[in-house]
């Protein structure tokens, strides 16, 4: 009955040698994930396609409940099969993950593809020393012996900025602060130098300063190791300075997708605009409630027939309620959006909409993407502008990225 830390059965997958022939590192094609529940079928992810290139960062943004967590777990293949209906393909480094059996998947998980969870308090085993939680993967995937793995774990803890790792390695998660725990989580995820890391809201719940530190750490390690990262967040500000490309999700679908700069400069989808308006900024008096988008995301069992955002969209027309806008390009081929009346220069093309100011509320003040820790350095370089005014675009990279 004794459990062994050993790979069992199956051929060893060759990830390092077999190239993926010019294909992006990750290719997700028409992924659908639904849950059978007592009330009906919840379509949590409803036809998502995306790609991630080697070493790049893809930001996945959407309100809570938009399907980000289900998407990242479906990509990994982590959802338990019970009551889950899945279709679509996920190609990772040239392999079809959706066609792999559990034994093969386990060779990919943790080794080539790993995950940073939202809440390190619940995602770290409360009764296991953090050292053991790191060395497990090293011993399993890299075949290290105990002492080798321990030495590597200490180095990993050092590299994620844990002071005196030789002692800390024997600590339990509850003995660490929230920020430290998230650093440990990063150390675990990166232990075997995966090619792609899914970070599902890695800093939600941490205070702003710690948030910035953790995200910077992740960016630094990513550069060093040339990993790709999928950075999932409900806060567009978090990915504004860190992602190469951004995917905006709403009710299980992608509603806008573009390189980061393009997304901010040429926002097309009113929902994306609304998310931008809800980015916290330094000029806001502290304590003020940010303009949450009015209304709630739709019921995923019975989504609206037309545009899913229509019930909340200030520009919604009859057409929007009748038929669903396809995800399409207009202009640059790498900018996709799903809207019948896309914004142009911050102004809706819907009939009768002419005002240039955003209906989502923000009417002035200097704004900058990114959490306020970064914003403090950037605010004097970025021209003050309401988000909605695309004629004074804000370059998300301006002065923000430490290079």
């Amino acid at each position, binding site marked *: 009955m004794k459990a062994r830390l050993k790979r069992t059965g199956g051929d060893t997958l060759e990830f390092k040698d077999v190239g993926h022939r010019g294909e992006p590192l990750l290719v997700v094609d028409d992924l659908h994930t639904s849950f059978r529940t007592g009330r009906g079928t919840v379509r949590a992810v409803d036809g998502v396609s995306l790609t991630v290139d080697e070493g790049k960062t893809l930001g996945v943004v959407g309100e809570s409940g938009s399907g980000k967590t289900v998407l990242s777990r479906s990509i990994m293949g*982590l959802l338990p099969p019970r009551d889950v209906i899945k279709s679509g393909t996920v190609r990772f480094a040239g392999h079809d993950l959706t066609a792999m059996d559990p034994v093969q*998947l386990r060779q990919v998980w*943790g080794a080539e593809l790993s*995950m940073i*969870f939202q809440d390190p308090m619940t995602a770290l*085993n409360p009764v296991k020393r953090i050292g053991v939680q790191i060395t497990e*993967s090293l011993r399993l995937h890299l075949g290290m012996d105990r002492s080798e793995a321990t030495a590597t774990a200490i180095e990993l803890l050092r590299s994620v900025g844990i002071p005196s790792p030789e002692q800390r390695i024997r600590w*339990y998660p509850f003995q660490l602060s929230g920020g430290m725990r998230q650093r440990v989580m990063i150390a675990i995820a990166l232990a075997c130098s995966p090619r792609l890391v899914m970070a599902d809201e890695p800093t939600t719940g941490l205070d702003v300063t710690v948030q910035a530190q953790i995200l910077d750490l992740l960016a630094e390690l990513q550069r060093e190791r040339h990993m790709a990262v999928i950075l999932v967040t409900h806060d567009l500000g978090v990915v504004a300075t860190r992602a190469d490309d951004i995917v905006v999700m709403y009710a299980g679908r992608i509603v806008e997708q573009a390189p980061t700069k393009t997304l901010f400069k040429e926002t097309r989808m009113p929902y994306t605009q609304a998310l931008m308006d809800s980015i916290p900024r330094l000029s806001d008096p502290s304590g003020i409630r940010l303009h949450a988008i009015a209304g709630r995301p739709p019921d995923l069992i019975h989504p609206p027939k037309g545009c899913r955002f229509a019930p909340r969209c200030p520009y919604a027309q009859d057409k929007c309620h009748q038929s669903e806008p396809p995800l399409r390009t207009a202009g640059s081929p790498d900018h996709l959006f799903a809207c019948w009346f896309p914004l142009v220069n911050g102004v809706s093309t819907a009939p009768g909409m002419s005002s240039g100011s955003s209906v989502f509320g923000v009417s002035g003040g200097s704004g900058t993407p990114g959490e306020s820790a970064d914003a403090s350095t950037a605010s004097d370089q970025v021209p003050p502008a309401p988000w909605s005014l695309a004629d004074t675009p804000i370059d998300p990279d301006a002065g923000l990225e430490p290079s």
Partner: protein
Amino acid sequence: MAKYLLRRLIQLVVVAFIISVLVFLLVHLLPGDPAAQILGANDTAHNRAVLNKQLGLNLPLWHQYIFWLKGVLHGNLGQSYLNHTPVTQVISTGWPIDLELIIISQVIAFAVAIPLALITSRRPNRPVDNISTTATFGMLALPPFVIAPIMVAVFAVGLHWFPATGYIPFTQNPATNLHDMILPSLAITAGSIAVYYRLFRSDLISTLQEDFVTMARSKGLSPRWIMWRHAFRPSSFSLLAAAGVNIGALIAGTFIVEFLFAIPGLGYSLVQAVNQRDYLVVQGITLVVAVAYVVIQFLIDFLFTVVDPRVTRE
């Protein structure tokens, strides 16, 4: 850790002291006069006064208590009024029987409940799980005094596999002793299996839904490794607590089974002594049982520090 255990140990001593007071009072507050019980027909006022003086019963209560406690600390619990057997001797024949019954029944209970829960919790509501759940529900509903006669009828009277009653000390003939103890132990074990299985199964099921299990899966660990190395320990807290209470209750709680199988355990002797108003025996056994209960809780607390590091460090 040491500090935590020391604190627990001090608590243990305090509780043991309180127990000794309560046990002492229990007997002295009971209606009836021990001297009258002993003297029987010779119960005259004079004789009673003499005897009370001999027994120290004329002294103030606190004085008597000190007297008794001194005896207890020197291993002298007095002797039976009826047959003058020293109470310590009644206890020393009794406790190995209870200990043996408890050890055998609990080893069987854990050996059945834990693997079964490990198997069924991975796929709840499948046939194996449903059968086990129903079976343990039945076990819970059948107390030992129902199970025991059925087992005697089937295995002893019917099949002649085991003796219906009788007891030979382990030291005299280990093989016969174990053979004799199997039926009584099985009669006790059913309830424990049911409780342990159900608790451990439901805790495992909820642990397996924890983020840290998904996290462990995302590291590529095998289901078996995750079960043993990640889910087992965090799922065992209520099992451990229940085991403490259950074993504690079994110390003298096995008396029905002891009666049915006519084995002279502590419970058996206690019930007899109560019926015969043999107060010093009652007092002695109650004290031993209560202290054993407290010691078991202490051991369980110690085990908690082993399975859950948060207990001593937080």
